[in-house]
């Protein structure tokens, strides 16, 4: 292999300055210009081992698309990505690349890994500007597939199966499609416009979307099975976990999903122009250390009247499950991190939360999750002066879809049990993926499951 000097530092993605961006919900990252993208793409050494592809749950042909960007063939690059991933503008923005493709990048061993995510978003956005190519579709097979949920898993599975010629109908419980991409991920990270744009592909493929339709309620899973040849369940998360401490139900205490749904899906930051309100005080505490906690904290920072926002997390920053980039952005935006801190009681006055008693923690030996277990330091209790609290400590799988279904194997925390290779459930013709099988997970994990399931469903339908 010819020796070539590797540029160790990545080209930073232009971003809006923190003091400007916390005044609105517009996107934080401005994205690469064509020049910057080409320069960054040239850092890829096109290594023959391609660990990045292995590291991607949907196996995007990463070196190939990056090569096309380096050559200035941006539209071709986007189409190369779309051979495996139909949502480049979304995944480029929200995938945890540092744990996946970028985490195993060979260039990353001697410098910064190639900015695969930013390049993917660039390619997707570029193609959208010049006109997205209509996807190819196989001859109709006459087989009908139902997909439950229109989040990242549902979209991916529906697109794959529609391309193969199957007739696909998605059932969505909310009044808009997109699932967590719309209600859960804030617009400053993933603008809703981009989600709608990437959803257009479903229309082009002839996928029908039934909104306001709750499987388990409006129609049962059994009825779906009678009507359709196969079913993919991607109903996502449900029932938020709650801290079992005093004062949990005081006014001003939210679960993350309520807070994010009010603002992202329902437009509460534009109240009273939009009808849905969100109440926030001056000092907001967000409990948790994951991406959702960062999303809530940064959302709160952008709401009128909020002066201080805290992240309260019981372990140290090193154990935080949130992406490094999210933590970094949150800090830039002035979110105050209170790590090794755990709430023990919400203090109320006239029915509203006015403070939170916390205890400081220290780390002892690792627990079953491999992370060092936090233990309270006796006598270290103190009161944090807050008037809004948001719990972002995770959630269980959505329970409604399984209601009254016989023979569906469900795990001990309510998740649907599947064969990990095929995403097949214990019910014939029923497959499942995403948060409903993992609990809280990532967009790309849901998409990876969906692709596996789509392949298995296709095989199942051909044999049927």
């Amino acid at each position, binding site marked *: 292999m010819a020796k070539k000097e590797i540029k160790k530092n990545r080209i930073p993605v232009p971003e809006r300055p923190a003091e400007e961006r916390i005044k609105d919900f517009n996107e934080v990252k401005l994205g690469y210009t064509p020049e910057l993208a080409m320069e960054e793409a040239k850092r890829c050494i096109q290594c023959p081992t391609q660990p990045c592809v292995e590291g991607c749950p949907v196996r995007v042909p990463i070196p190939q698309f990056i090569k096309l960007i380096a050559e200035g063939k941006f539209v071709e690059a986007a189409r190369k990505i779309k051979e495996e991933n139909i949502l480049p503008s979304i995944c480029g923005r929200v995938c945890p690349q540092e744990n996946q493709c970028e985490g195993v990048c060979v260039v990353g061993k001697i410098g910064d890994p190639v900015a695969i995510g930013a390049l993917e978003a660039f390619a997707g956005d570029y193609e959208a500007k010049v006109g997205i190519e209509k996807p190819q579709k196989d001859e109709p097979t006459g087989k009908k597939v139902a997909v439950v949920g229109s989040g990242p898993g549902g979209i991916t599975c529906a697109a794959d199966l529609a391309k193969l010629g199957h007739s696909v109908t998605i059932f969505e*419980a*909310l*009044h808009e499609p997109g699932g967590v991409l719309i*209600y859960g991920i804030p617009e400053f990270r993933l603008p809703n416009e981009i989600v709608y744009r990437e959803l257009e592909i479903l229309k082009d493929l002839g996928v029908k979307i039934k*909104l*306001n*339709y*709750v499987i388990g*309620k*409006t*129609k049962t899973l059994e009825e779906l099975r009678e009507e359709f040849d196969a079913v993919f369940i991607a109903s*996502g*998360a*449900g*029932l*938020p976990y*709650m801290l*079992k401490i005093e004062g*949990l*139900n*005081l*006014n*001003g205490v*939210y*679960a993350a*999903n*309520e807070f994010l*749904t*009010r603002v992202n899906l*329902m*437009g509460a930051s*534009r*109240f*009273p*122009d*939009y*009808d*849905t*309100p969100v*109440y926030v005080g001056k000092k907001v505490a967000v409990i948790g250390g994951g991406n959702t906690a960062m999303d809530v904290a940064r959302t709160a920072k952008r709401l009128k009247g909020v002066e201080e926002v805290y992240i309260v997390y019981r372990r140290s920053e090193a154990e935080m499950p949130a992406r490094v980039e999210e933590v970094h952005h949150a800090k830039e935006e002035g979110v105050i991190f209170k790590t090794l801190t755990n709430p023990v009681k919400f203090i109320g006055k006239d*029915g509203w939360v006015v403070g939170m008693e916390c205890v400081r923690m220290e780390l002892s030996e690792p627990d079953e999750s491999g992370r060092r277990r936090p233990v309270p330091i006796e006598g270290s209790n103190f009161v944090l002066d807050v008037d809004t609290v948001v719990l972002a400590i995770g*959630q269980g799988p*959505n*329970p*409604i879809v399984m209601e009254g279904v016989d023979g569906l194997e469900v795990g001990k925390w309510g998740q649907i049990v599947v064969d990990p290779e095929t995403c097949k459930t214990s019910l014939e013709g029923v497959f499942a993926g995403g948060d409903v099988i993992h609990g809280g997970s990532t967009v790309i994990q849901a998409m990876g499951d969906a692709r596996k399931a789509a392949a298995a469903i296709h095989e199942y339908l051909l044999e049927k």
Partner: protein
Amino acid sequence: MYKIVRKQELAENVDEFVIEAPDIARKAKPGQFVIVRISRKGERIPLTIAEKDPEEGTITLMVQRVGKTTFHLSCFEEGHVIPDVVGPLGKPTHIEKWGHVVCVGGGLGLAPIHHIAQGVKEAGNRITTVMGFRSKDLIFWEDKMKAISDRVIVTTNDGSYGMKGLVTDGIQKLIDEGEKIDMVITAGPVPMMKAVAGLTKKYNIPTVASLNPIMVDGTGMCGACRVTVGGEIKFACVDGPEFDAHRVDFDELMNRLRMFKSLEGEALKEFQKKHCGCGRE
């Protein structure tokens, strides 16, 4: 799109809407509700299914004008469409053949109570309905409740119709008459449900309350509708909306219902400034 097939004003500030929603009508069971969004910028509000007609493909919703959305909805006439109606949500009422069931509804609580009473009657129970209103002009659906009940007691706070007093006085009257009551099911304002629960607990009568907490998605995702029942956190949209009334923390529920009151008041004021043409003030 969900078309309004019939609409009528039932009483001051209360409208009845019959809405085309065949899939929901086919599935709706007593105790269940829908979530409605009436415009592009609208909020999601839970409304009880008061009646359904699977053959006609319609559901009946009763709407009390209290905030911006319900006032705005009252401007919708027959033929208008509601963009979003989702359901039926929540667990259906658990119905058995208990014997003598007393259905207690206050004001808009008649909506769930009517549907539940229908189911309870079909299961072969004897039904006494106690329906309470502030005064005579606010009474509605007395005829409908009479049609499915073996006996109806109407109470008014001011004594302008029926028995003077509260619904609890109606229940007390039954107890004093020596009526054996096997089950009480109640829906209405939270203070009313709390009072009913307090009374029936004294006499050890099993009692179920249909709760009305704040909801956003209604499918168990957002956690807004959490209530404390027997010291445990429950989610009204998936575990309820009906719970053992003797174990519900009604004071907490009352407090949580106040959470957005001031913002809602602001929204209603804004709305009323802009809309005076639809006949409402």
